[in-house]
Structure formats: C-alpha cells, structure tokens
C-alpha cells in the first residue's frame, strides 16, 4: 500500500502535464468506456448474476443500458460543457469581458457501492473524465466479481496513467481517504459518509455524497382499472425489480388510504405472480440478497412477533440461497426498525392513512428521502407534494425510471455530473483605457457622489454630478 503514495504522485504529475484537459483525451476515455460496455456485456451481466443474482435483463436495463445512454449523451455534449460561458455585464462595469470557464479539479477519488456495482462506479467516472480529471475508483468489495472485472478488464480500455481502479475493503478505503484529493465522490451509507466527509476536512476537499433514505411511494385511489394496474406494476418493479429492493432509490414503503389498502394488496398479489412467477426463486426473476450479513439483518426486521402480525404475503427466507421472497406487510408499528431504518431489501410495508393528503405530513415529518414516488392524477395533490415536501427528487406515476432521463439532475447524471467535477472559474478582462478617476484616493465628497451614482448605474445622475448640478445628501460625512 506504500506504493499508493508514489502512484498518486505520478498521477498528479501526469495530470499536471495537461493531458487530461485535452478534448481528444476525454473523448478517447469516453469511447473506451463505451467499448468496454459493448464488448464485455456478457461478462458484465455474468458478474452481476454472480454477485447479486440479477437477471440478465434487469442487469442490462439498470446498469449497462443506462450507462450507455449517459455515455452517448456525454460524448455528444462534453465539448459544449467544456466551453466557457459569457457573463453579462452592465455597461458601466468597466470590464471588457467576463466569462465563466469550467476547469477540471484535478485528481478525484470515487468510492462506489455494491447495489449497482457498474452503474454507481461508472456514472461518476463518466462525469469526472468528461470534465478532464484524473481519478481513482474504488469499487465495493461486497460485489467481488464486478469489482474484479472492473479492476482487471476495464483498465485495458483506458489511459492507466490517469485512471486507476483499486480493489479492496474498508482498510483500503481508509488508506485512500488519508491521501490528498481534489474531490471525493462517495456512494454508500450515512455512517460511512460521515467518515468520508471528516477525512476530507484535512485537505478541504469538496465532497459529493450520494446516500439513501426511506423512499416512500404514495398511492392515491385511482378510478380506472388500467391506471391501477399500471401503478401496481410500476411499484412492483420499483421495489422487487430493482435489485430486490437493495437500491438507494427503490421504493421503501407505501402510503395508501385505509379503504384502498385491501385493493392494493390483492392487486399486488396478482401481479407479483404474473410478473415474478409462482416461484420467484426458481424463475430467478428477482435478485438475491448480497450476503449473509444483510440477509440476517432483513430476517431480523420481520422476526419480531408484532411485525409477524402485519405480514400479509411472503416472508420466507432461504439462507443458503441468499433469497428472500417478495414480502408485503400492512401497518407494522411505526417505531419498529422496519419503519425507522432504510430497509434495502424485498420487504414492503404498506402504511395506511385516513386521507391521502395525510401522507404529506407523514413524509415531511421524517428525514428527507432521496426520492418520493406519487401515483395520482389529482393535480392539487401533485402541487402540494412538490411544494410541501422536501426530497432529492419527485416522480409522478412511476418509480426509479429517473435514471433514464439524462438531462435531469438525478444522482449525478449528465450535465450536472460534469458540473460536479469542475471548478467554474470566473475570468474578467479589462483594457487599460476607460478608468474612472474617482476610483482612487485621496477621497473627496465629489468622488463619493460619482462612485455612488456609478454604482447605481445612474448615468444621468453621474452626468449631473460631473457638471456640478447635484449636491450630496450625505451631510454626515466629513472628507
């Protein structure tokens, strides 16, 4: 590990040479990433199956597919993002030009997570590289096949002098955090995030932290059968179809009106069977739990007798196969762990409220979630949700699909990702002409008046003062 300091020094030198700032370099790296995804798709999907038991199609949809979209968007847009932006100037600003020039930050540390081992690793890499930075990526050791593929195969597609992939667990993470970085991009738990931000203090390193939370889905009573079915299908995919609920943006729990709860539960049972099969374990339609530790944690959430009372579907756990079947609960006690901690698994509590509007208070009295999913056609409810709750994002009538909308700033996708890895440098230019003599001491009341008028962009007032036609109101100032 001592080699790490030397490696980083070399990387910094290489970055200092200016190579990574060149448009051609950035384009080559982005193309290299794209080739990796296209040529190694089979290995990638296999690694995801191995680590998380993800079905090929879920894996493609959520990891490979979305990455390809981001890459294509970055490739067609990065030159535009690189260009400086002019800043508007008032006439009297005396500056001949002003612009905002984005420049790379330097050497970035990206720490990824296991729930979407490719997506959460490579999305920030795309942003960092498009912005002209060098970087070190540390994938999660809890998804070892994916981590290994990233560290052995991906480097063959990229410039290794500027991009390094380092495997390892918490000790490696700690050691990395002690080094000097120009930015740290972290995806993971709140607890680990505190560690990251505290370590960043040493070098005043700016950080971007992608955490989680309990993402609620609010289901309004929908009148048409079609709408109801679509909503339920999307909820099922948004929970069980997303890494078996092990995703920061997966639906954590549902809020629904008391009277509607039974309908919801019945519809869910029907569609779970239709979509995930009679025996999801056999059909492999939902992912596995990542490891024994998390399986135990999830098992404990539903082992409490008070929780068992609220179980209406599923609940069986196969420890050897690391499999938990889709599980639904109705109104578990709000103080129970399943309702206070982020679930991150295929257990879906349904909380009933008297009126659907009560869900607003329910959500805003708790910690801000990463996403809120609201299924409703009621425009008033939509408006209130947006303005009376606070969350990373709000999706109406769907769940999770935001990864596919690249122009919207969800979790570092697209333009906002480039921006995250850039310093927007202000550059102002003047000529040697046009100086306002009243800018300089010795100070007189006359100069003060002139400056005051100039400040207010009061060109007429300025003229009047110059002509001696305006008296100063500031009698208290003796200059």
């Amino acid at each position, binding site marked *: 590990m001592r080699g790490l300091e030397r490696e980083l020094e070399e990387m910094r030198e290489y970055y200092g040479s200016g190579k990574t700032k060149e448009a051609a370099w950035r384009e080559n790296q982005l193309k290299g990433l794209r080739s990796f995804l296209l040529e190694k798709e089979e290995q990638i999907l296999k690694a995801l199956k191995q680590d998380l038991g993800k*079905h*090929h*199609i*879920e894996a*493609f*949809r959520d990891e490979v597919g979305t990455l390809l*979209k981001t890459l*294509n968007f970055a490739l067609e847009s990065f030159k535009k993002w690189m260009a400086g932006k002019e*800043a508007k*100037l008032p006439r009297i*600003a*005396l*500056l001949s030009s*002003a612009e*905002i020039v984005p*420049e790379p930050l330097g050497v970035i540390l990206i720490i990824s997570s296991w729930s979407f081992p490719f997506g959460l690793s490579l999305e920030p890499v795309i942003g960092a590289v498009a912005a002209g930075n060098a970087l070190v990526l540390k994938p999660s050791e809890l998804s070892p096949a994916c981590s290994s593929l990233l560290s052995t195969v991906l480097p063959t597609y990229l410039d290794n002098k500027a991009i390094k992939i380092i495997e390892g667990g918490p000790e490696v993470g700690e050691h990395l955090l002690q080094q000097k970085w*120009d930015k740290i991009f972290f995806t993971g738990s709140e607890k680990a995030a*505190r560690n990251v*931000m505290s370590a*960043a*203090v040493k070098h*005043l390193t700016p950080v971007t932290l992608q955490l989680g939370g309990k993402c609620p889905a609010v289901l309004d009573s929908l009148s*048409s059968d079609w709408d109801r079915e679509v*909503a339920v299908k999307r909820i099922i*995919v948004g929970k069980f*179809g997303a890494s078996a609920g092990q995703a920061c943006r997966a639906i954590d729990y549902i809020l629904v009106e008391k009277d509607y709860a039974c309908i919801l539960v019945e519809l869910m049972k029907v569609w779970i069977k239709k*979509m995930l099969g009679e025996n999801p374990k056999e059909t492999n*339609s939902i992912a596995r739990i990542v490891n024994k530790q998390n399986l135990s944690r999830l098992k404990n959430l539903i082992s409490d007798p008070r929780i068992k009372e609220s179980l209406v579907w599923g609940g069986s756990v196969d420890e050897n196969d690391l499999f938990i079947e889709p599980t639904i609960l109705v109104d578990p006690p709000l103080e129970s762990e399943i309702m206070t901690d982020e679930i991150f698994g295929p257990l879906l509590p349904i909380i009933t409220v008297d009126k659907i509007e009560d869900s607003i208070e329910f959500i805003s009295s708790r910690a801000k979630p990463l996403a809120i999913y609201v299924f409703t056609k009621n425009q008033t409810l939509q408006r209130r949700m*947006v*303005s009376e709750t606070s969350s990373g*994002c709000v*999706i109406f*009538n*769907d769940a999770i699909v*935001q990864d596919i*909308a690249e*122009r*919207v*700033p*969800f979790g570092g996708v697209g333009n906002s990702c480039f921006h995250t890895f850039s*310093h*927007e*440098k*202000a550059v*102002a*230019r*003047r000529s*040697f002409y046009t*100086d306002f003599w009243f800018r*300089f*001491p*010795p*100070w007189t009341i006359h100069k*003060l008046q002139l*400056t*005051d008028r100039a*400040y207010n962009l009061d060109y007429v007032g300025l003229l009047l003062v110059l002509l001696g036609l305006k008296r100063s109101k500031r009698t*208290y*100032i003796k*200059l």
Partner: protein
Amino acid sequence: MAGEEPKNVFDAEAASSLARELRGTFLSGKTRSYEWRVSQLKALLKLVDDNEQEIVDALRSDLSKPPMESVVCEIGLLKNSCKVSLRELKHWMKPEKVKTSITTFPSSAEIVPEPLGVALVISAWNYPILLSLDPVVGAIAAGNAVVLKPSEISPATSSLLAKLLGKYMDNSCVRVVEGAADETTALLQQKWDKIFYTGNARIGRTVMTAAAKHLTPVVLELGGKSPAVVDSNINIKVASRRIIAGKWGCNNGQACISPDYIITTKDYAPKLVDALKTELETFYGKNPLESKDLSRIVNSNHFGRLTKLLDEDKVSGKIVYGGERDESKLMIAPTILLDVPRNSLIMNEEIFGPLLPIITVDKLEESFDVINSGTKPLAAYLFTNNKKLKEQFAKGISAGGLVVNDTTLHLAVHTLPFGGVGESGIGAYHGKFSFDAFTHKKAVLYRSFHGDAAVRYPPYSYMKLRLMKALIGGSINGIIRALFG
C-alpha cells in the same frame, strides 16, 4: 450576590433551542413564499438606507475604515445585492423545464428550486457588513430561515447588526448570535441545512469537521496568496493605480482578494517600484501614517503578526518603500519589499495587510510555475498586453477567479461566481450563485399512465431485451427492427 441576574450565556442548550425554533418556523412554510422573501429583502435594504451613518461610524470604530470605502465597498455592494435579488427573484424561483427522452415517453420534467431549511452564516471582521449580510441575502432569497454569527473582532459592527436585524427583520426566521469561540462552537454542534463560512482555512476546517457530523453541506470562503503578475510594455501608471486600489484601497490590504504579492521580471521591477511609489504618494501623501484614507490594522494581534513579517532578518533589508508603523494607532504605512527570499515568513502565509513583496523572475513565463507551486489562491491577477500570455494565464492558472489588467473588480460583477478552489475554498456566491448556494434543485418527473412499455417488466424475455436496447439507443429504426424482428 443577592438580586444579581445570571448573565445570559449562549451555550449548547441555547443553540439547540434556537435551531429547533427556527426549524419549526421553517417547517410551517412561512419563508417559502415569494412575498415573505421580498418583504425581508426590502427590509434589509431599508435597514441599510436608514442607518448608513451608524454603519459608517461602526466601521470607523472597528477598523478606522475611510467612509468612502464603507459606502462604496460595503454598503454599496450590499445594496446592489439586494436590488439584483429583488429584480430577479421571480425568475430564479421558477421551475426550469427540461427535455425528456423517448425512453420515458410520454413524460415531462422540471427542476424545482427549494430552500434547504435553516442556514448558519458565520461572518468575518474585515468587511463585517458585507460579509455578514450578503450571504444572508442569498439565504433569504432562497427561502431559508437563517442565523447570523458576526465576527467578535469587529465588535461595534457586530453589536449594530444584532440591534438592526432585530429591529427590521422577521425575528421568527432571521436571528443574530453575537459571541466568540464558545458561542460559535455551540452553534456548530447543532444540525443546520447549510453552513456558510467566511474566514481562514484553519477555522474553515473546524467548521467542516462539525458539518461532517450532520452531513451538512458547506460554503467556505477562505483566502490564500493572490498573486499579481506584471508584464513590461503596459501602461504602468494605470496598472500601478489599480494595484494600489486593490491592495491598500481595500481595507489597507486586509481583504481576501487583495493582491498579496507581485511577480515581475528583474528588468521591469525598478520601473514598477518607481511607478508604485509615485502613485502611492499621490494617493496617501508623504505621511501615509497620517492619511485619513487608509484603514488601520484591526487589532494588536494582527499588528504584531504583520510587524513580525517585516522584522524577519532576511526581509527587513528588502524594504524599498514605507515600513513605518505606529503601534498606538495600530497603523502600518503602505510598504513595498523587493526580492524577499521565497522561504521567508512573508512569502509563506497570507499577508492580509499593507505589505507588498515583489518577487522577480528572469522570464515572465516563470511566474506561472511560482504560482502553481503554491496552493490555489482565491484570485490571481495579470497585467499585460500580450494576447498569448493572457490565454496561457486563463488556461494555466487555477484560482477562484482571474482578472486581467485590474484587481478585485470581479467581486462586484454579480453574474460571476465568487468563491475559491482547493485551499481557497468550497462553493461560490453573488447574484444567482447566492440563491443557488442555499437552494436544493429538486428534480420532478411527471409520467402518465399511458405509454406503458411492457418491455420494462418481468417476466423477462429475449424480445424485451432487444427492444430495450433499441429504446436506449434511441433510434427509431432500431426500435422498428426490434418490434418486427
């Protein structure tokens, strides 16, 4: 003693109760309305307008700041900030529509700016009005509740701010806490939704450490050694005046973006020194210690620090102008030093005072290496007519902000983000950037129940995979091909 009231100490309990109270007010939704924000911004404007004399007096008391500087650099800039916000607020508050793609068709999306919640603003002593109220303008414009902690090193201003904000602003949402290290520590223990700090890197680290406990995002406006590179073949008279205005004209060098030191060629240095001497005498007279147009050094601590820089053995002989000091008045005259050693104290910490070292190099291009060998500064200045040099400068020097052929002016342009990079800071503000600094940009996606692509759902099939690939690729042909095999 009997009948004596215990002094009101602002401790952790008081801080916690304050944070709780403001959070309650914020959650009531009061600060979100356009009307509330406008009323507070107008109140701030009125506060400054009605009390200009008191403000100038307080600044004179704390810093002996010349009234001209107070009116122009503090009051003027603050009023501008309020006016820009009032003018643009409706526009800033509007959600921004964004394009969506075929994969989420049909859908619409927008970015909705929402306030973060309760902000803590910790201010500095050198521009105590501006650096306290400018961030508060941003916090209010963005719809937050805010607590301001002014610097105790400028006590008259701190006390005036507490009095005036208490009188003019909505106290259920905007509060001032006066005090020093203890009070600041108590505040930093609480959970805030954003902390905005202006000051030095050492305390900046303390602030960030405290923020890390609650994962609170921060803006840190710090400092550094802002260099001014001076080429030959320029209008040296104009350049000198602008350097002087940015150095001694800004609180006698006690400003985060004052040119800290100069780099020029060996050949040009004498000419530059002469020009500076001439202009300095025009501005401040033959007896600058007596000039009414210079701020004093803020306190004896800093006075001692600065004289130590001057009196260092290898440096004291390098003074080519000035060097006079009057401890009773806490005044140090504008001082220029030529060719101080690179390892001297004065070249290894931010000066923040009226001392200007000039470093010489053989070729001007070497100046870039000198600058890049240090930490990234808050600002960097270049005086030249050479187009290529200007380009190299803009591309090759990393700093918060760059100005060519002048100093410090970029601070006054509200369309430019003002902030540091690396050791000089995190985040930026001014104009819309202030609004953004205290805003969460919430993404909102609206989908309909129509256009449901079964492609997304299990049970999964090869056909669905092909269609999905085509959809993600976005090409119509691809989609048609996938649909019809």
